[in-house]
């Protein structure tokens, strides 16, 4: 059959395809369960439609807001729907005030993938975590920095790697997520050693102990993007990150955290928040957030206690200098509060929900189960505004702004008054700025040159 070489080759390919193109674990069960649920609007159908609408509107938007300005802002292209007028929403919370459950188990939350990062562009300072008012670590493109007095920062490691996440569970033990590698330290960062990778590149990790950790790997977005996008997986480790195994989870996970080996939370691209109380073996839906624009939503969560969670949900649909976001919080794991929403877009659809501090999702940091600090980005105003949420989100207070910047990449607050924020100085540097009065005043601590964009 010499004449059939090509066919043999094609059939060899087919053989490998049949063997290797494995469907997700428990696909049949998932499909059968899916028959019982109403299907959301198909993302595959809407994304191109969304793009078409953007194409029709892009010319007008460019004229309205200036293509150069938008480009310089380094933000998602706000070209998807007609300009939306700014409509302030009432500041009263629409929901009953939950009883805060203060918990001493709240652990410093890791800094997730920088919210302002563009795909393939990792800032010089992309992630930060403070462990108390003096100890802290920051990481970004090609370097890890640390401080031991909360003021002065020194470079701990120089690398060709681009770091996008930091997670410390003690003054000595922590992890840094790179685009290609995962590093760990047990001596406060004096030495870093490479750990294992999951079957797909790890995008974020969150450890609840020296051995137990979870993370999100894979996804169809480029490394350094602000979310894994679709088709990410949950990975877990029981040996401090040396080995990772894929864990069952709802589809398209975006962000995951565990407060201990048992209690965890997970948010998905579909805008659903799940809760696990058995170490991630099973997940139960806890909250359905606003509907995502097909294929565009992403979520960041920060665990504050086994029953307390804060969620920053961006359903997609950036428009005319506004990128919708909604913040949700629970202090008891049962009752959810819609804390705030982007006022110019989705806020209009959520009457009674207070306006968030910026027109882009920005950064946030959870202080304890009842308190968190949000820094909202407003690129057109070239400022990032600080808002303190207390009492489980029932009370919001806008304080001051970081002027001269329209984007932030991470925040780490150790109290509602003292916190560090990663941003840029509008002059080609990525910087760490700090406040000790709740955001009214800010001072710069470290500046590193912004890496050239690809």
């Amino acid at each position, binding site marked *: 059959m010499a004449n059939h*070489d*090509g066919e043999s080759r094609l059939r060899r*390919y087919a053989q490998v395809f049949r063997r290797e193109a494995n469907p997700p674990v428990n*696909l049949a069960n*998932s*499909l059968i*369960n899916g028959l019982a649920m109403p299907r959301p609007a198909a993302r595959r159908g809407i994304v191109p439609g969304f793009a078409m609408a953007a194409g029709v509107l892009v010319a007008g938007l460019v004229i309205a807001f200036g293509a150069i300005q938008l480009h310089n802002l380094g933000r998602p292209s706000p070209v998807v729907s007609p300009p939306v007028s700014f409509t302030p929403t009432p500041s009263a919370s629409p929901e009953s005030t939950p009883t805060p459950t203060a918990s001493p188990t709240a652990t410093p939350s890791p800094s997730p993938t920088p919210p302002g990062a563009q*795909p393939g562009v990792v800032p010089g300072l992309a992630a930060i975590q403070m462990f108390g008012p003096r100890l802290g670590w920051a990481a970004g493109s090609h370097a890890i920095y640390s401080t031991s007095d909360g003021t002065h920062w020194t470079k701990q490691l120089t690398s060709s790697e681009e770091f996008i996440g930091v997670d410390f569970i003690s003054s000595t033990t922590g992890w840094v997520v790179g685009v290609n590698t995962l590093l760990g330290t047990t001596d406060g960062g004096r030495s870093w050693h490479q750990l294992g990778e999951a079957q797909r590149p790890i995008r974020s990790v969150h450890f609840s102990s020296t051995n137990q950790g979870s993370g999100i790997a894979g996804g*169809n977005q480029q490394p350094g993007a602000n979310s894994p996008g679709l088709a990410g997986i949950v990975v877990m480790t029981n040996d401090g990150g040396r080995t990772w195994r894929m864990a069952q989870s709802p589809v398209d996970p975006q962000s995951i955290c565990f407060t201990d080996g048992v209690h965890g939370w997970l948010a998905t691209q579909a805008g659903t928040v799940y809760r696990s109380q058995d170490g991630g073996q099973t997940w139960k839906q806890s909250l359905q957030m606003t509907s995502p624009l097909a294929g565009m939503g992403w979520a960041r969560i920060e665990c504050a206690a086994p029953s307390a969670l804060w969620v920053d949900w961006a359903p997609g649909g950036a428009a005319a200098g506004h990128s919708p976001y909604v913040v949700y919080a629970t202090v008891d794991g049962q009752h959810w509060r819609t804390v705030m929403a982007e006022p110019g877009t989705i806020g209009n659809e959520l009457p009674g929900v207070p306006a968030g501090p910026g027109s882009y999702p920005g950064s946030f940091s959870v202080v304890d189960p009842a308190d968190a600090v949000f820094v909202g980005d407003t690129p057109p105003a070239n400022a990032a505004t600080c808002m303190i949420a207390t009492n489980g989100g029932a009370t919001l207070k806008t304080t001051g702004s970081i002027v001269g910047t329209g984007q932030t990449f991470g925040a780490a607050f150790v109290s509602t008054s003292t916190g560090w924020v990663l941003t840029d100085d509008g002059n080609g540097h990525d910087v760490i700025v700090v406040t000790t009065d709740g955001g009214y005043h800010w001072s710069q601590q470290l500046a590193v040159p912004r890496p050239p964009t690809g």
Partner: protein
Amino acid sequence: MNKEDTLAVADRPWFEAHVRLLARPAYQFSLMLTQNPAIAEEILQEGLTQLWATPTTPAELVEFRRYLYRVIASRATDYHRRQALARRIRFWAPAPPDPMLEIERRAGDQEMGRLLRSLSPRERQVAYLYYFEDQPVDEIGGALGIKPATVRVLLHRTIQKLRRLGPELKLREQSS
């Protein structure tokens, strides 16, 4: 409503058995057509949902598979049509089909993957069912809702195209 409720209400116990049997091959068919695992799964889920909601869905396995494949092919074609529109005004880079690249790497034949992707959606449907699932022409026609003669034409065109794209390929013409 849980799974048990849903499947019991309609008194179609064969449906779940068919799903379990066909989940993998149908997923692979969908993956070959879309090159995207998430979309492949979604199309499969929607296809099954459509079959579930249709009172006249055949209970017999071969007919069921034919019906399911036709729905998948139709939805995948629709997906490609929308993708083609989106490409004209694309603002972002398309997601890399990493599972497919891994398959090609393991097959040691990235060229074949490239060739298959260069086929039109309909040609890829026919080529997949013929070469990957060894389905006879009549069956392919039934699954795709086209005449067997059309299948032969498409196969011939596919082979010509593959030869043109990869001159070293020597593919057997469909003979019956």
